Each structure stands twice: as C-alpha cells, then as structure tokens.
C-alpha cells in the first residue's frame, strides 16, 4: 500500500493504460481494471460499458482486504491471486507489488491458464511503473502532491463553492 498520497501524472497513467490494453488483447479478456488497495479505480480497458466500475473497485478492494485479513490469521502474508468462476464471466484478481489490484474479467473466449500467464507478465511490468511512482512521491516534498500542486492554492471560497447548492 502507498504510505503517501497516490499522485498519478499523465505519463504514468498512459503507461499503465498501455499495459492493460495489451493485456486485454493478449489474454482475450473482456475487461481489465487497475484498482488501488483503498478502493479507488486507477485505470480500465476493454469492454467496460455497463459495468459499475466505481462499485467494482470498492468491492474488489474490500474483498482483497478481507482475504488479506484471513491470510494473516492462518499465518500467510497475503493471498495474492484470486479466481472467481461464474456461469458466463469469471474474475481473476491479482495483487501487484502489494499496492495495486489487477482485475481481469473474462469469459469462455479465454481460459484461466492463458489469463494467469498474461497477468504474470503484465503484473511485473505494472509493478515497475508503480515502483517509479512511489520513488517519485518519496522524492517529492512532504505531502506527496509535489511542487506546483493545484491544491496548495485552494481557497476557503473554493471549498465553500462546492457546497453552494
């Protein structure tokens, strides 16, 4: 998990998007999602129309958190791979670099073996990207938002305006 605030810039986002778009093709998946462990959706690719992605992100994080808790109870550090089999669609969930969650939705056009194989490669690439993001955040000034953060300039009026309904 990120100990600091997660700040993602356009270039990082594009790299992650590139990785998961390739994963959709290579694994014959319906859709791929990247979720942070706190339940926020980071990126999505594939056939994601009709899927409530915000709920998917929050529930995935809840599920990973719950099974992580179970793992600790029996003396494991984590259960990094989860597979849920449905009648038509299946979910393959992997914890990447202990920080983010890679969710693959696939049906019978693919197979668990193929998804597993492709996720392994994509997961390793993604771990590198998130490692770089972490290093960037650590080298940034305290707060992680970095210099030139738009939030340093927020005024009380800006905040009040959000609630002026």
């Amino acid at each position: 998990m990120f100990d600091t605030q997660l700040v993602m810039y356009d270039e990082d986002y594009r790299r992650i998007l590139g990785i998961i778009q390739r994963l959709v093709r290579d694994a014959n998946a319906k859709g791929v999602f990247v979720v942070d462990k706190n339940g926020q959706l980071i990126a999505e690719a594939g056939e994601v129309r009709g899927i409530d992605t915000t709920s998917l992100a929050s529930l995935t994080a809840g599920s990973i958190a719950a099974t992580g808790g179970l793992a600790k109870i029996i003396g494991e550090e984590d259960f990094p791979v989860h597979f849920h089999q449905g009648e038509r669609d299946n979910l393959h969930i992997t914890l990447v670099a202990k920080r983010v969650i890679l969710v693959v939705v696939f049906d019978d056009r693919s197979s668990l073996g193929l998804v597993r194989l492709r996720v392994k490669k994509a997961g390793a690439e993604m771990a590198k990207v998130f490692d770089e993001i972490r290093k960037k955040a650590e080298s940034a000034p305290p707060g992680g938002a970095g210099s030139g953060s738009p939030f340093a300039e927020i005024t009380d009026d800006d905040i009040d305006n959000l609630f002026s309904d």
Partner: protein
Amino acid sequence: MSFINYSSREINCKIVYYGPGLCGKTTNLQFIYTKTNPDLKGKMISLATETERTLFFDFLPLALGQIRGFKTRFHLYTVPGQVFYDASRKLILKGVDGVVFVADSQIERMEANLESMDNLKINLREQGYELEKIPFVVQYNKRDLPNAAPLDEMRRLLNPLGVPDFEASATTGEGVFETLKAAAKGVLTDLKKLGR
C-alpha cells in the same frame, strides 16, 4: 489516502463513518443517497446481514463538483458497528482521509459510544494515524428521541478536542448534510495544507 489523478483531473478522497452498533451510520448514508442528484452519485452498496445490520461496509460514491479544474469525488464508507466485527473495521479504516464519528444520543448508549471512540483511536493508531491529526467530525445522532442525553454532557465525553460537531436526526435528515460538508471541508483543507 487521497488519490490525485492528473490525467483524468480527478481527486478521490475517503471518508469513514464510525460509531457504535445501531447509531445510524448506514441511515446517514441512505439519507445522503436519497437526497443527492442522480448525476452526482454512484450506486450505494450495502454489505449487510439478512436483518440489515452492516456486515462489512456500506459504500456511497459522491461527486461534489470541481475545484481548480479537478473533479472532486468522495467515497463514503461506514464500518460495521457491532463490537465483534473489529477485524472488518480495521480494514475499512485503511487509507482513510477523514472520519465522522456518529454517536447515539440515547443515554443508555453512552458507554457504547465511549467504547467505540476508544476503539476508533486504537484502530487508527494501528494504521499509523492519530485521531488528533486527521480531519474529524462528531455527530450527535438521534437528538429527536426523548431519552437523549444532554448535549453538554455528550460534548464533554465525546469531543474533548473541540472538533466540528453537529446535532442530528439521521432518519429525518437533520444535520446529515451539515456533518458531511464539515468532514469534506476538513479533508480538502488538509489537502491544501499538504500541497503547500
């Protein structure tokens, strides 16, 4: 931990509603859900038992509007209040940006309020947070009930730090949005400090 996405120009923050069992955490979220413009809210998720007691969490995503060109999204979570769900409560506090403590004003629930407040402090500390340092708001719920404890007494016991606090009746919605606004404001003000 808030998540700032420069690519989609979004900022996501997590607010957790904490408090003893049956104090009205889920009712707070339900009221917010029913009164929010459909364009601004996502689906509300409740992982509850058959008797509608929260089992794991309730979740409500809300979009509040834009600040400096960034879409501001708040993810509201409740914890299960019953004492034996402590393991779940710890998980939900992970990555929290702000906390709302919902107290049950009924005089016979005062001990449960205090126990839950202590539990909150312990669980936050386990995650590396200090209650004194994170955006925190207290809500005295169920003020409409005849057996409500005096406000001064509740303040003395539950809000020694003097954080923003509100009287509420979550079933009628009184005080619900005031509480949410104060919590959201606290989180954004914190973000402003961090950005400096």
